[in-house]
């Protein structure tokens, strides 16, 4: 029990004293999750739109597949990506293993189903009159997509927040692909896993609070952005 309180105190300490190791992990986490968010949103929102907007044969099957992939364990994604980026793998040349872009690549795969599934649901939940209205007003192709996503902006934003939460809190990929290498690819979550393994539970809690603080800051920034845009 007491390590929780200890953890809270240590979290404040870590944050205020600018603890070097902690900030290194914060920056690694931020870098990796930012890159993976850019990747997964850029890919996932358009795919989600297509899946939510159009009717095509096999749509239900694709939908079921995406929903199933929501259950992808991080370690499996890690194993899968490792097979490609290992120096003997097909992408070995790119030297992505034990790098932040490598983590980001695997995280993108991890959260893509979340972005796609939630965006598709958001687009599907839109008022049925929107489609006819946009067509009647002369929107076409990408314009329809953009306008639809703007109509569903709130739900799409939550899709992004959910995906962000998943990326920033995962540990299996960061371990497997990042390698948890101190000063280089150690993220907050791999640090938590390490400290917990060492029996340093209060440090684990402290780093957990650091992570939540980070997530809160990012969400707050997004909220401000959202307010501006609406």
């Amino acid at each position, binding site marked *: 029990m007491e390590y929780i309180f200890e953890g809270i105190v240590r979290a404040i300490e870590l944050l205020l004293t600018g603890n070097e190791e902690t900030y290194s992990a914060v920056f690694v986490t931020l870098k990796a999750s930012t890159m993976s968010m850019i990747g997964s949103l850029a890919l996932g929102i358009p795919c989600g739109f297509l899946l939510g907007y159009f009717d095509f044969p096999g749509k239900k099957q694709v939908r079921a597949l995406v929903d199933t992939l929501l259950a992808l364990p991080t370690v499996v994604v890690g194993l899968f990506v490792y097979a490609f980026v290992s120096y003997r793998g097909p992408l070995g040349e790119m030297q992505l293993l034990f790098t932040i872009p490598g983590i980001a690549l695997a995280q993108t795969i991890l959260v893509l189903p979340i972005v796609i599934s939630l965006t598709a649901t958001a687009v599907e939940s839109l*008022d049925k*009159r*929107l489609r*006819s*209205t946009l*067509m*009647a*007003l*002369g*929107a*076409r192709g990408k*314009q329809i997509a953009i*306008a639809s996503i*703007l*109509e569903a*902006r709130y739900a799409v934003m939550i899709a992004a927040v959910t995906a962000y939460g998943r990326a920033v809190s995962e540990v299996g990929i960061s371990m497997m692909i990042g390698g948890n290498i101190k000063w280089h690819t150690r993220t907050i979550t791999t640090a938590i896993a390490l400290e917990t393994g060492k029996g340093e539970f209060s440090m684990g809690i402290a780093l957990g609070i650091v992570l939540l603080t980070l997530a809160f800051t990012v969400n707050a920034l997004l909220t401000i952005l959202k307010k501006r845009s609406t």
Partner: protein
Amino acid sequence: MSETPLYRINNLKYRYENGRFLLHIPEFAIARGASIGIVGPNGGGKTTLLKILALLEDPDEGTVYFDGTKVDRTNDAMKRSVTMLLQEAYLLKRTVFENVAYGLKVRNEKQGLTEKVHRTLHMVGLPPDEFAQRRWHQLSGGEAQRVALASRLIINPRVLIMDEPTASVDQRSAVLIKDAVNTMREQFNTTLIVASHDLIWLNTVASQVFRVYEGRITGLASDNVIDGPWNPESDGLWKKVLPDGQVMFSATPPGDSAAKALLNPSDIVLAKAQPDGRDGLSARNIIRGTVTLLSEENHSKKVLATIDLGGLSVISRITRRAAESLHILPGTPIFVIFKASSLRWE
């Protein structure tokens, strides 16, 4: 060239999934610059027809020709020359300004945008100062409807299709809309297709009004429609009992007992007193009723008298002279007279 109609419909069929409704139009054409009105009961198929004409839906069978070529919904230029105001207007979750500007923005016509939006808002009676920056949900029903209309008018399309444009609009705005549409037609020869339940308003914008009924275009709107059931009589006639117990006869047999009869308003004669005996009169049907409304038919300048036959409403078209000599007014008791052979079947 100018002989090809703007729309030509050939054996069109459209069906909703697991619905009984079938829109079936064997042959129909709309001329360039025409202004067509469409009336008919709820569920008749007006909206369905308009959506197909607006290129928002593909028919299941048959062909629609637009401007001489087969409709191709992948042809953006073709699609963009038609716009439609939907029956239940939907506003984008943006400001009024953005809603009205949207059609021009997607066309990349951004020159003089603000000025155009403001002008169009004026046309529908919404002062831009007060409305341009409102959010989509900060509007009353009729205001929202007019914003939706403005976002169509600004596009200045070749064909303007409107589904119940005046449904929740006040009378003053209905006149404004009429004026806006008529001005547009004069300037740009816009083709107009409007569905409405407000026949009086419709007559002020449409030069020809069709009735759409059970998925078919059943002729001109002004025709009276008389429901069955029709039962055979001994003398070869078919009889329908009106709600108040009076009867109506048809000389030709209906397709089936539930068939609907059509009666041209011009075929109805009105009399203030009951003609004595049937001998002196070649018409079999003499039915008691009350005048409920008098209006003027816009194009013919004749008088349209709406008469309530104890529950069934029919319209009679009479000359001004006849109306004057009859001294009719709303509330006047009247006799409606027409031949049993005047009833046609759909």
